[in-house]
């Protein structure tokens, strides 16, 4: 039993590619966070090849839902230093290689 498990495990870890949305940092209220996360998932799935379009969609939806002005960054590699209105920041990963930052200022 123990040996069998041991053999299987390393293979498993290699295979797994995590694609679920992972919230890295957020100070949004729980409800808003969930809504935003769902929005991000929808947008990134819809525009899987076009980050700009995804970012635009997220921004516009966020503006509509929670009031402007929101800023959105979608990308695979970037650095940022932002100042944001408290309770309006979401920094999350999605799809295994995308990072999404949403903030209001």
């Amino acid at each position, binding site marked *: 039993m123990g040996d069998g498990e041991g053999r299987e495990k390393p293979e498993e870890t290699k295979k797994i590619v*995590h694609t679920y949305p992972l919230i890295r*940092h957020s100070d949004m209220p729980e409800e808003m966070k969930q809504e935003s996360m769902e929005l991000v998932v929808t947008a990134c799935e819809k525009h899987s090849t076009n980050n700009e379009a995804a970012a635009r969609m997220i921004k516009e939806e966020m503006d509509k839902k929670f009031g402007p002005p929101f800023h959105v960054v979608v990308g695979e590699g*970037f650095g940022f*230093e*932002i*100042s944001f*209105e*408290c309770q309006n920041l979401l920094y999350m990963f999605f799809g295994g*290689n995308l990072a999404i*930052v949403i903030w209001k200022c």
Partner: protein
Amino acid sequence: MPPTTSIKKVLNTKTLKKSRQSNTRVEDGDDLEEWKKSKQLLRPKDQLELSEGELKDIIARQLGTNDPLIPHNLVQFNYAQGGFELMPPAGPMIVVYEAQGTQVHKESEEAKKQVVEQGLDPAILEISQSTETLAVEEPIPVIPEEVIEEVAAEESEKPEEETEAEEGEGEGEGEGEGEGEGEGESIRPEDDEDKPQTGGKPKKLTNQFNFCERAALTYNNPMRTQETQTIPPPMGTFSANVLQWIIYDAYQEDFEAQQLEKELERERKEKEKAPVSRHQAMAKKLVGKAHQLSEAVQGRVLECWKVLERMVNQNTFDDIAKDYRYWEDPSDEFRDEEGTLLPLWKFHYDKTRKNTVTDIEWNPHYYDLFAVCFGFLDFMKPLEEGAVCLFTLKNPSFPDYICMTDSAVMCVDTHPKYPYMVVIGLYDGSVSVYNVQATCKQPAFRSNNVTNKHRGIVWEVKWAPDLPDGEMNFYSVSEDGKINNWVLMQNDLAVTTIITLFLAKDEVFGPDGTKLKVKGCASCVKFHPKQPLIYLVGTEEGHIYKCSTAYSSMFLLTYEAHHMPVYRIDFNRYNSDIFISCSGDWRIKIWEDNRLEPLFVFDVGACVGDVKWAPYSSTVFAAVTSEGKVYVFDLNVNKYKPICVQAIVSKRRNKLTRISFNPKLPIIIVGDDKGCVQTLKLSPNLRIPCKAPKKQQHLDQWTLQCMKLDKLLSLVREPGALDLPEDTAESIES
């Protein structure tokens, strides 16, 4: 001067003037004739000379209604249609002067009315009207209308004439003026007389255009300025770098955390499967996540320590461990029928050395785990505390679970489906349910110490099959003659009394004259293994009652079994119609259902604390006595004598109280009154398996065992009369 005369004069002058005018008109007509005759026709030089014929030619003249001056093609731009449009031709009428019709001639009837009704300035009116009234009102009775007009015309002319001929006709006019003034004076009284009439009914004429505008200017309120500034929304700064490896690491980390959480969740669920008490539920709410984690870590450490402890124990008791599994007494081959018991480990717990082992029971799920109750049976020396300990054969030095109680524990039962649910009955009459997996410190359920309890020692508890709703429930029998059913509700125990064991005796008079029905004191209970409703109750009076949970007032059967309290009853594993009972009257009796006389009676010469059928054989049972001996019978081998009698503890100091067969291994445990549990291994002679007859090789052990018992029973069953002599004849001496 009378007015009539003056008017006549005026009239005379008028007629004169008129005749003069008519004369002049006639003269004018005559002049035209004369002028025409004398006129010479002048011809323009360029006039056409027409011949006679041409002149005679009659040129027809047409007279039409068309006015050549009127334009017929007047157009007007229509903005709606965006083009010019012919206008209808204007009529032949030419407007020379136009005046708005809001004016009324002041002499017309309407004007007069208005003046009268408005009652405007009578003074002004008098002056302006004085002359008129004179002319208008005076002549009415005498003179016809034509004359009046003439008079009015004359009077209006008069002033002009006067100015023209002021100087020349001074005298003649003087009279006229005097007359005029006189008239004015004479008329006034009449005017005065009229006045009250007009002023009497002043009627306001409604005129919507007749309004006056009024306005007022109020003071302006003083102005004040006030300023405020809101607090800007709180801002924060955040910075991070996004790189692929950061994302990957974050996912890995989160995944591991999830795995850990799942593991914890699983553990928690396993714990939650068992209903937990509200204390625990509350405790769970209080502890945070971190605390849970540390608990999990502690649990793992504890696990390690347990394994270590077991390893050490295995080392110390190496020989016993080997005996327990592999040693078979070789001397059995040379002994004909008898067997021996090999003592293995002794289990005890330091805190309960003074207690008596009141009940022992193997766990139905783990074959190496058993529960031991520590209470007391010597009621001259009561003890304050009791305990339930769960020992495992793997660790003889210390119990795996310890549940300390504040009263002596008299009985225990482990739930067959949930092996961590342990119910205990206490000396003080209450019952408790422990979830040993969750916590041993406090019971998950506990009967109320005041309202929900037995009024006597709880002698036996027994789990019942779960209710249809999945609620666990158990039965308890007590000295107070009641058998209760307890249901584990969400937070508490719900109790129902199944039966009260009233004796079939007349009512007894109490000290104050009241009548009391005597109750039997139940001392043990056993449920029928196949019919869940049927159960047997042994009492301290020595009776065994066969009851059903469906009837709460009557017994199905009453066995007059013993002369002393019945300590334990046990159903045969193979034939549920057969049961065995033991008693304080030194005897062990084997009964068949619905047969009031016992099939076998064995006298062992001492108080029999417990008797149990062996799980591996239909004919083997074992009993323990207060003399410290274990008796093992095999009816198939010897119907009269035990095949093994062995003193386990010293006869003088110790008593044996309980015995229990391990359901899997050839091991029995016996408890004594010094809080010690002894493990004994049965030698091969005590557990001889059935040999299948040559003709029926295919039969399995179960059927063979049943057949063996049936064969044995058929020997003793037939004549009912034979049973009685057996009772005395077959008693054996120890």
